[in-house]
């Protein structure tokens, strides 16, 4: 192998690795933190879990299903709500932008006990 060919190969390797690492840097800089998925089950007359701890700034998806009938999920502090129907998964996507303790509740009347169908979201720093 002559000198010239070696040089071309080396340059090629360097070029490729430069592009790859550049891409890596690029994707890292633009990376969206992975969404945290939390499964919630609604049934007469509670949510499970009924206490959820989140991190401020960390995007989250609530995947909510019903074990019996129509319910609602309303987390007013973050302006998110959904109807929860049996046989379906309702998704709520949001990023908590403030810390504290916030109530969520069923907002679709579901019977004697509906009033107590609530839970808490705790957002920490």
């Amino acid at each position, binding site marked *: 192998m002559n000198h010239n060919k070696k040089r071309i190969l080396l340059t090629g390797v360097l070029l490729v690795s430069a592009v790859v690492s550049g891409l890596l840097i690029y994707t890292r800089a633009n990376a969206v933190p992975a969404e945290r998925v939390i499964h919630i089950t609604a049934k007469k007359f509670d949510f499970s879990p009924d206490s959820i701890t989140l991190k401020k700034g960390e995007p989250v998806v609530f995947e909510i299903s019903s074990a019996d009938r129509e319910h609602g999920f309303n987390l007013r502090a973050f302006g998110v709500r959904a*109807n929860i129907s049996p046989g379906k998964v309702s998704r709520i996507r949001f990023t908590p932008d403030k810390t504290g303790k916030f109530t969520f*509740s069923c*907002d*679709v*009347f579901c*019977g*004697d006990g509906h009033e*107590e169908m609530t839970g808490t979201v705790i957002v920490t720093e």
Partner: protein
Amino acid sequence: MSKFDRRGFIKLAGLGGGIVFASSLSRGFGLNALGSVVDYANAKVENDFYFVQLSDTHWGFAGPKVNPDAEGTLKKAVQAVNSLEEQPDFIVFTGDLTHTTDDVQVRKDRMSQFKEIVSGLKVPTVHFMAGEHDASLDRGDAYQEAFGKLNYTFDHKGVHFIVIDNVSDPGAIVGESQLNWLKADLKQQKTDARIVVLTHRPLFDLYPDWDWSTKDGSAVIDALMPHKNVTVFYGHIHQENHHLTGHIAHHSAKSLMFPLPAPGSVPKKSPVPWDASAPYKGLGLRSIEAEPKQAKYEIKELNVTGA
């Protein structure tokens, strides 16, 4: 109460030169022949009257720690109304007549038992409204069978009453079609018409985390806004509350089954336990003296025995 306003009559009669006629509708002071004056130019009846509001009777509720006289409280209230010295022109029940149940037959039974008890009222005119306990689980089917329409209007001595249903949709929504119905009805009313809205839930956001709101209540308030004389009477929150949205006053009534805590005062909303040293405390009914000419409503809270 309901004194014949002589000055009002003279002023009205002298005004506008419209057709003035007298009828014998009013209970006056020997002035029956002139008891009611209609000025056709203003389509206004000049007459004070009063009505009684009862709310949240939750017939069928059982919970001895909350109300050991669950079977007797409504009957006492009927008795209290019947013993009022001067009988009201009519009575309104602003929802949650019965306590909710998943059992359709029990729901119907509770409604007929409730009807049976309130049929003991001496006053012949009673206007019913549904609460979410009556109507949310079957979209008002059983309720309509027993009591009739969920939303309607009626007029009484110059006051236009509008009954709004914010309960038969389990999501606490008035809904597009009822909103259009309301707007069409309001179109028939002059901007200075005397309007009273009767409904179950608060139309404003009193405390949404406790379901003390109507999701599209602001659309109702927006529709009412151009009208200068609007007052809202409602129930649902089992306590007195007085609130203004702009010039519109909202007054909630006490329950006749159990009181609820003040908005947000405790972490979880649940009935206030019975106080043996003060039975029926926090429960009651109210009389509302209407003075249509001034668009004024004077509220008097009464306890379960009518005192």
